[in-house]
């Protein structure tokens, strides 16, 4: 049990998907202007990541691996992810119209969030069991949400700052992200054994 807990911590903090692995930077930069939308995006992505990765794991284990169709992996996974994102979009549109408005184009773009595909592939590569897969992906998605919310909070404050003209907009956001990444370096080598 504690092993899973440490796995959760490790994936969320030590190997943070955004700050350490540098995956999922598109929504990280795109939907991080407000805490509310960042939180919504994080939750939507969490949903997609966990669902897509577990479906992908099953497809890999029950379909692709037995039939020796490893070369179709990328194609299949993208198909699954696209379908899950489509489904998520419908759910969000129905359940939270204002969040749907806020996320805008970035909601369907979860399909192209490399964190989703990346995590699905890593699970196969690392030969995770199904339970590990779910925890690993949930932890990573949690880390993604955490990074999104923290970053959005800072950008909210930044929007009130007197940033020099040359740095306004994306440049200062990247500087900020780099400093945040610097802070996350503190978790590197974290080992509870």
């Amino acid at each position: 049990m504690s092993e899973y807990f440490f796995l959760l911590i490790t994936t969320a903090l030590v190997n943070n998907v955004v700050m350490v692995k540098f995956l999922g930077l598109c929504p990280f930069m795109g939907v991080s202007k407000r805490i509310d939308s960042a939180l919504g995006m994080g939750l939507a992505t969490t949903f997609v990541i966990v669902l897509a990765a577990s479906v992908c794991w099953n497809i890999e284990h029950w379909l692709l691996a037995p039939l020796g169709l490893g070369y179709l992996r990328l194609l299949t996974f993208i198909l699954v992810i696209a379908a899950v994102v489509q489904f998520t979009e419908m759910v969000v549109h129905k359940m939270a119209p204002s969040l749907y408005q806020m996320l805008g184009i970035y909601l369907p773009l979860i399909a192209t969030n490399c964190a989703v595909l990346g995590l699905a592939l890593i699970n196969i590569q690392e030969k995770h069991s199904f339970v590990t897969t779910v925890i690993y992906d949930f932890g990573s998605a949690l880390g993604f949400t955490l990074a999104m919310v923290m970053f959005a909070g800072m950008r909210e404050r930044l929007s009130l700052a007197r940033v020099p003209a040359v740095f306004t907009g994306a440049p200062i956001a990247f500087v900020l992200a780099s400093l945040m990444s610097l802070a996350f370096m503190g978790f590197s080598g974290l080992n509870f054994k």
Partner: protein
Amino acid sequence: MIPVLPASAPATAPHTVTGSSVTRIMLILLATLVPATVYGFWLYGWPSIFLWIVTVLSALLGEAACLKMAGRRAMPSLLDGSALVTGWLLALSLPPWAPWWIGCIGGLFATILAKQVFGGLGYNLFNPAMVARVFLLISFPVQMTIWIAPMPITAPAALNFHDGLLVFIRGIPDLDAVTSASLLGFAKTELSRGIDLFHSLAASTAPVTTFSGNRTGSLGETAALLIAAGGLVLMAFRIISWHIPVAMLAGIAIPALIFNSIDPARYLDVSAHLLSGAAMLGAFYIATDYVTSPNTKYGQLVFGFGCGFLTYVIRTWGGYPEGVAFAVLLMNAVTPVIDRYLKPRILGRDWRGAPLDPAIEKAKS
């Protein structure tokens, strides 16, 4: 009678103000740092003095250059003393015999990339001194982890002005003769070699923790008690409140107490944690930085505890022997979220912001 319209915007109330100012706050802060700094100078000799000068000057230079480029008046911002504080705190957190370019790069990085690109004083999201320290630690791990055994400047074996300058510019000639490990680093290395704390700390090579601070470390960590005293003075002047320091020290002490009592062979005790590393400097001077810490009392408690707890986690299980800088940066990143969710209650409203029920208030007597 023809009314005379004021030429410019009317003066606004209040028509009286406190005598306090940003400059005054910064100057008091620096004044309380003087004893610890001078003590550090005495322990580590000339190279540390040179490093301090270069770091502070680089910080000021970085600030001035940015203001110049932004076309703003440099003097008011330089005189407010914030760049001086940044440079000073950075110098206090560096290895005392670090080469000159460490101080120079650190000072410039702190004021330019951690502060001025965000718009200068008040807008930076991370503590500039700690950003620079972490940046230096990651970029130059070797130079940033050479710790010197203290050797009072008055001792006969201490370097004189000329030799100190040489060490400062050319580097340390004979490393083994002067270096020593800090307590946290030593404990970590020995633990990783499979030697538990009972044995490693009993060894003759083990660093000792003394309250006088006569031990290995950066300028700011050796004199933990002088730093703490300075912090108390700041509280007396009401420049900092007790919330962050107390919460941060508690954040270190509580897990230290728990784990030390579970397994003293693996986990250092409370006093070792509190007195070594930058715990005191961090609690009183770094984490309390106005700009990058929460504004409300509750937020400050959460923030301080987070800083302390993360420090303990990184020290104990992380890859680095010291975690204050990382912990502070991580909590800096959470500060806007804390500020957003931990607001004081508005008079006449409940915690969620809805107006109170008049019937309940009326019934009170």
